[in-house]
């Protein structure tokens, strides 16, 4: 009986095509990925059923220029308003803060007001989207 023995030939795989493909993949992922740091602001699209509480919420109106209006006074600096709101909350005069943008206020201005107030320690805070019919 004759047993055939195959001689193993040594193939050396050429690395160059592999590197080419890896480079193309690298460039694709470098261009297609985004590293933007997204921060979400959660909002309700409709009427939120807030629990009826004894103390009313404070409504802060944001006008088109970014000014904050609360109880008939216009505040240019959010810090000043935040101090007043925090004091009122500590005295149990208000239960929460609702930020209500005017119809012509842009999203930049509205989000800026929300951000500045929450940065100054005002909480809990929500954004009135107007769809609940509470526009003055």
């Amino acid at each position: 009986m004759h047993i055939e023995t195959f001689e193993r030939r040594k193939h050396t795989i050429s690395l160059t095509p592999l590197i080419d493909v890896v480079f193309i993949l690298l460039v694709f992922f470098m261009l297609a990925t985004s590293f933007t740091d997204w921060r979400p602001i959660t909002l309700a699209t409709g009427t939120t059923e807030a629990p009826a509480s004894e103390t009313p919420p404070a409504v802060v109106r944001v006008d088109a220029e970014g000014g904050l209006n609360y109880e008939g006074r216009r505040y240019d600096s959010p810090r000043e308003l935040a101090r007043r709101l925090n004091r009122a909350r500590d005295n149990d005069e208000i239960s929460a803060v609702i930020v209500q943008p005017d119809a012509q206020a842009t999203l930049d201005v509205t989000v800026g007001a929300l951000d500045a107030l929450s940065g100054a320690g005002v909480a809990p805070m929500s954004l009135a989207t107007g769809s609940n019919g509470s526009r003055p």
Partner: protein
Amino acid sequence: MLPLINIVFLLLIFFMLAGVLAQNPPFELTAPDTAETQKAAQLQRQVLAVAADGRLAFAGEPIERDGLADALADWPDDKPLQIRADGGIKAESLTGLFTALRRAGISEVDLLTRHQDP
């Protein structure tokens, strides 16, 4: 040669794992900036994009406002819809959009803002 290939492989794996494949809407938009919002979010694959002139795109494809209900028909109730809106849109058009979304069965949305260090 081999150290170079090792580094390229490492870079490839880094970009594959660390980033999110961006799904860009077919129009330019600049999301509003925030500095104080602490909650972070991973960008989902299906994001509703809103241009400054009110055009909409869902998951990278332009759609009409009338088509929102069809596009969002199988959206789960407990998952907020991520919205990438241009910072220049007016509050009244956002209100109109929210009304349309509520009709489409969306009760909660996540308005995406870009984090900027103050």
